């Protein structure tokens, strides 16, 4: 039986060119829709922070091999402008991680290239307009592409009067303006498709199935089937989406095992 201590710490690579967010996906001609699926016990905060870091600075705190300094800085030129909008968390969840790994204080509006929006305290009904406004503000400032991370937008299906198609339509409109990362829960209890059209799990699984059919990349985090382990937190699966990506931007499908420590440090291992 191997344990994580026997395995070699690996770097995160999503595409075949060993990149995490490929430069080619940031071209203005085509916008990507990426999905991050997770279970309740394997929340993807650490992965979101890593992806945001890679979008901004082209670096990744998970990787031991540091990429060449490409001259990106938080207050200057960045790889991509980032908006992180959460429907379930406030900035307290992310602030420590961002300070630790990016040296970025998201509670203070210090970085002109990053914006954190939370719709927990704010008016949730105006989420779409608020994000659109921020995208237009950021895209006016620089020529680089905006990447938007949306955390648990599926809650809108249950706490507002939004229907599946209305939500997907709004996401489509946003995706026409920027690259989208949608973070959604994929607990098995939520994906039990029933014959009742208006059943909560039917609504949820329909929403997720439709979203998967629009996606270019799927990153999923799930716990080990064997249960909890002290040296492994869960597994990260990287899969192609159902829409083929731009040629020569090839997703390298693979599985990692990962370990999150109480300090927030993360290690990846090949499965």
């Amino acid at each position: 039986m191997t344990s994580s201590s026997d395995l070699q710490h690996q770097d995160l690579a999503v595409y075949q060119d060993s990149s995490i967010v490929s430069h080619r996906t940031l071209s203005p001609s085509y916008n990507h829709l990426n999905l991050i699926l997770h279970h309740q016990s394997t929340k993807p905060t650490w992965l979101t922070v890593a992806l945001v870091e890679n979008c901004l600075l082209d670096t990744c705190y998970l990787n031991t091999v540091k990429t060449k300094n490409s001259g990106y800085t938080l207050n200057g030129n960045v790889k991509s402008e980032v908006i992180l909008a959460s429907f379930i968390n406030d900035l307290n969840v992310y602030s420590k991680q961002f300070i630790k790994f990016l040296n970025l204080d998201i509670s203070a509006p210090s970085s002109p290239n990053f914006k954190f929006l939370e719709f927990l305290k704010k008016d949730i009904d105006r989420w779409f307009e608020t994000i659109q406004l921020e995208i237009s503000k950021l895209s006016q400032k620089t020529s680089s592409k905006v990447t938007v991370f949306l955390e648990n937008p599926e809650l809108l299906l249950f706490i507002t009067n939004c229907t599946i198609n209305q939500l997907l339509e709004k996401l489509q409109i946003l995706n026409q303006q920027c690259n989208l990362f949608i973070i959604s829960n994929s607990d098995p209890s939520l994906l039990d498709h029933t014959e009742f059209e208006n059943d909560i799990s039917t609504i949820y699984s329909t929403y997720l199935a439709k979203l998967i059919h629009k996606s270019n990349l799927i990153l999923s985090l799930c716990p080990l089937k064997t249960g909890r382990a002290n040296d492994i937190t869960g597994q990260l699966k990287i899969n192609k989406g159902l829409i083929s990506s731009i040629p020569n931007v090839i997703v390298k499908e693979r599985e990692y095992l990962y370990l999150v420590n109480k300090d927030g440090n993360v290690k990846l291992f090949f499965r």
Partner: protein
Amino acid sequence: MSFRKRGEIVGSPNVIPSAVPGRGGAPPAAPPVALPNTRQPPAMQSMPSSFRPAVQGRSAVVPQRGSVPGTLGNLQLQRPNTQQQHQQRKDEQPLLGSHPGVRPSILTSEPCISTGSSDIDKILAHQGLPIGTSLLIEENGTTDFSSTLLKIYLSQGIVQNRLNPSSQNTHLILVGLDQTWAKTLPGVYKGSSKERKKLAVKENESKVSVSNLIDSQQQQQLQLQKEHILAQKQKQQQQESSNNDLKIAWRYGLQRKSEKSEDLSESQYPNYNNQFDITSTLIPSASPKELTSISIPTRSKSYDLVLKQIEQAIQRQPPNVLIRIAVPLFLNPMIYHESQLQTTTNVIQFIHGLKRILKTHQSRTTLLISLNLDLFPRSNPMTSLIEMLSDAIIELRPFDPQLYNLMEKIYKNQPAKIKHGHLNIHKLPTLSDVGLMCVQDMEYSFKNGKKKFQVEEWSIPVEEEDTDNHNANANSSSAHGHDEPDVASVNPMSSKRQTTTDIEF
């Protein structure tokens, strides 16, 4: 599990093709503009202005959507805008240091409060529940252990509030039940009957009376003699213990250190936690000044009024007052009569609204909810959504009657070892949000004792009686001088069969 080395595949840069149909390209890029150093504050959010009707076609299983959180028909909830939030943060002072019931988390240094049970505080990993977070207590079966936990959570708040009669430091909000339920809150544990008698004797002795005065002079002389003898004994013991320390294994020394550190933390925060006697009641019971009870209105179709009342109750309190919110027996049809209140949309809106309140007043509010899993099992997607919106989740799973009977049989002489059920952890505050896998199934057991809600690591009870019997049989057979191995001593089932057949014949 395979072991592979990292391979680096470098792709060649190529021209990017045109967009895929149906996926729009980016808008024309604006010319690069010099970045300003400062950023404007986020736009002020306006209130939803009107009540929204139910969505058509969603009435069968997810019937009639209620109003959007923040609205109650034409009545608007006062949702704080950004400026108000900043003002609230300024007003709400950090309670750490000033409140006797607040201490820093041992993991993240966040201010934490006690749930009333020191064992629950321990399994939450922070030595308490961080302020601004919620704890969902799920329970299987027909038992009601979760209500005990909610009661001691509220009692803990009242006890801390009464430490200084001149100033209020804690306020309780009870949702769904009224003051009569609050009258059953348990009182502080005052020791065993022997300890109470001793205390009573001491109190009597301290009173000024002629007999006490005469006795006290004689007792003083005796005490002086005793103290002298004790001091000599202590000196001897110290000398012996210093010699013994060298002999005792190093690990015992470490244990002593940990005990000392626990004592230190208790001495630093003496009023952080109390022990409660669930057979007693808190006297005097919680007054309306200490506890606001918010009932679920009859004929109500949504939780908007409840959310508004909670918000108002918090705003009525001074900014330095800690708020403990309790929602016992959530969605129990006994309390939540109207079927409209049990629809998914309304329930999720309510839980989301509670979370919004917690985060708006995150420097001084905590929340405990109890939910019966027989009514809403974990496989129910609505329960999953409730769990998604909770910061911490524990599940109380009482033992099957068979297992409980077995434990009673095994621990006949050690009743303290008999537990009431398993305690599973599904989520821990802060740690689960970071991405830690905190699920712990069947690793802990709980016991709802008179003086403590006890949580211990679960260990499978071993039936020692049978092995003793077998050994006895084996000894007796060897004593009788049988050369062949006794079948009964090897297989207990066969022995039973043997005896039954003997009786039959």
